[in-house]
């Protein structure tokens, strides 16, 4: 099956009209894959389907979600109904191997890679020209689906509604969140490093803000209130939580995806159920989402177990906003942090800093990352994309090979230096003239500087209420 994927993208048109992959088609395809049946008769080729398949080959990647019964649910390029036969084929591949008591993970050819994830009752598949982090992308997408339909709902829906149930009915309107989940792998280093980004801010200012938030929450005393998050530009400004409860970074990244792909009406608040699978994958929490002032990139998210608390949570927000507005010191520092975020500048590390072009530091236990401010040559969109790709590849290597402590790669245009310890991982992009010794010295100096400014770039304390 190893050369499979190239043919996979150019399989002939389906045995069914678009929009109806009936059970018998599925069986026919299964049998084809099985090769144990005599040739079956194919109806006339469907021109639409062919052009749809043709269209697929132009994308750098494509993601498919289907039910284990082969029914299309989502494809990242849209119009899944035109690709029924292709979906069915994915289902056949996965189910075939499953029936043999095994699991199909991936198929690779020279320049195309397919990865499969079976999470009953769903099958997820990514076909990509790149091979890094394919599984993680599917896992995060699956979490995204769970945030809309809890695991419990997902597990029982086909029992209740039959194998042929069209899950898109329940997922209606969530394509943008799935698209958002997938596209973030191409620009967001937090997603790539399975971590969250913290908005840089002086520790004292951040504390003042989170204390204010906790005060508003405690004085409202809303039964069922669990977590509060302030975020801006997909970065966390501050957090607080009910005593004894923790918000997993994976759940947090679902919240970030939700907020950044929702267009809020300037002064309107959103009240919606959401499942945070790492908190509780069988039930829903209720999220109150509101921007903090008109056209502000900063949002407040309040999570409650009680679906009747919208009004109370709205009062918390009003109170929080009023308190911020009445304290010029808090307001100014907050606004400055949000409107012109001050990322870590490599010049903080002193001499030799001009050789350090970019870095990504990841704290392993807190799952927080710190990025350097962008500087030449990593200013343009294209250069940033290259950076993201390189980081993605590094993470793949770190995850797949145990015990790597340091990596030094000299390319024509730059040097890549990676240091991995139990507590952190550091990736640096340096000038091509940098020696391994120099890279290591600069890396150490950077670590020291990050320690000095820890409070500004990381959240070290999450106050509870």
């Amino acid at each position: 099956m190893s050369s499979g994927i190239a043919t996979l993208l150019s399989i002939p048109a389906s045995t069914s009209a678009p929009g109806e992959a009936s059970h018998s088609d599925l069986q026919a395809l299964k049998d084809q894959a099985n090769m144990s049946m005599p040739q079956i008769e194919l109806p006339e080729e469907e021109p639409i389907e062919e052009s749809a398949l043709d269209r697929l080959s132009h994308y750098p990647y494509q993601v498919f979600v289907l039910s284990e019964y082969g029914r299309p649910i989502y494809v990242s390029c849209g119009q899944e109904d035109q690709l029924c036969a292709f979906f069915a084929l994915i289902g056949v591949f996965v189910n075939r191997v499953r029936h043999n008591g095994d699991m199909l993970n991936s198929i690779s050819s020279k320049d195309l890679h397919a990865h499969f994830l079976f999470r009953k009752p769903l099958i997820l598949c990514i076909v990509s020209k790149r091979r890094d982090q394919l599984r993680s992308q599917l896992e995060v997408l699956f979490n995204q689906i769970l945030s809309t339909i809890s695991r419990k709902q997902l597990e029982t829906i086909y029992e209740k509604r039959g194998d042929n149930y069209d899950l898109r009915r329940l997922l209606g309107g969530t394509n943008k969140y799935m698209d958002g989940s997938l596209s973030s792998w191409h620009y967001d280093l937090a997603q790539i490093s399975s971590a969250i980004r913290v908005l840089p801010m002086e520790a004292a200012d951040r504390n003042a803000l989170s204390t204010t938030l906790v005060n508003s929450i405690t004085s409202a005393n809303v039964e069922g209130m669990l977590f509060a998050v302030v975020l801006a530009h997909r970065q966390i400004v501050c957090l607080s939580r009910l005593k004894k409860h923790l918000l997993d970074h994976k759940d947090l990244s679902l919240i970030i995806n939700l907020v950044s792909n929702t267009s809020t009406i300037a002064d309107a608040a959103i009240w919606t159920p959401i499942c945070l699978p790492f908190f509780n994958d069988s039930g829903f929490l209720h999220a109150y989402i509101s921007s903090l002032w008109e056209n502000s990139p900063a949002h407040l998210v309040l999570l409650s177990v009680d679906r009747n608390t919208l009004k109370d949570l709205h009062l918390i927000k009003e109170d929080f906003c009023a308190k911020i507005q009445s304290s010029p010191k808090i307001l100014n520092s907050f606004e400055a942090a949000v409107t012109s975020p001050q990322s870590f500048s490599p010049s903080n590390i002193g001499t030799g800093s001009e050789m350090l072009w970019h870095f990504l530091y990841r704290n392993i236990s807190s799952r927080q990352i710190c990025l350097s401010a962008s500087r030449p040559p990593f200013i343009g969109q294209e250069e940033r994309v290259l950076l993201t790709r390189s980081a993605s590849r590094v993470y793949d290597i770190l995850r797949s090979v145990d015990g790597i402590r340091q990596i030094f790669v000299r390319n024509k245009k730059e040097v890549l230096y990676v240091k991995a310890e139990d507590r952190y991982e550091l990736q640096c992009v340096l000038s091509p003239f940098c020696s391994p010794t120099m890279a290591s010295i600069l890396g150490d100096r950077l670590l020291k500087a990050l320690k000095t400014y820890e409070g500004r770039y990381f959240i070290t304390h999450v106050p509870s209420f």
Partner: protein
Amino acid sequence: MAPPSRIKKKVVFLGESGVGKTSIVLRYDGKGFDTSIRATLGASYLVSTIPIAATNIELQIWDTAGQERFRSMVPIYLRKTDVAILVYDITDIRSFDQLNTWVHFLRNAETNDAMKLVLIGNKTDLEMKRTVDQRKAIGYAAKIGASYHETSAASNTGIEEAFFELATQIVASYPMGRRKRSEEINSVTLNETKENSSKCC
């Protein structure tokens, strides 16, 4: 008794996904018409104030999502509703046929006693694609005890009028004391169709 200087009312928009509830609310809120808006998540809540004579009417507007997965939340959104605005799309007969489901939700919800009902047929700018006969819609509105309006969020017609009429009615319902006759008629009509509605003395 003159109307109070400040009245608060909870207004809930209901209807199938895609009929234009959010577009109407945005238009009303002075945000123009945006074709790129996306399906509402859960419900969106905003407060808007209309001055009518000496009274400021604060409308607490809930723009709910029509998507199927939010149906279990509808009773929550409807709690203590003073005004329910049912919206359908005049070019989409299915959105009209589904109105019964929404009326059913309303009857079973804990709405306020004197709740007003408004039916809106939206997208009149697409008149040539109309599939829902206007007379039929007016008849249906009368049956469920709703006032009827046609609007277009795209071309901004009828929206201001609908809200203004609503606000005027709200204010008018005060001088005579809390309950005005038109309100009673509305709520009675709504209750009449309820199966086994208990007769009150």
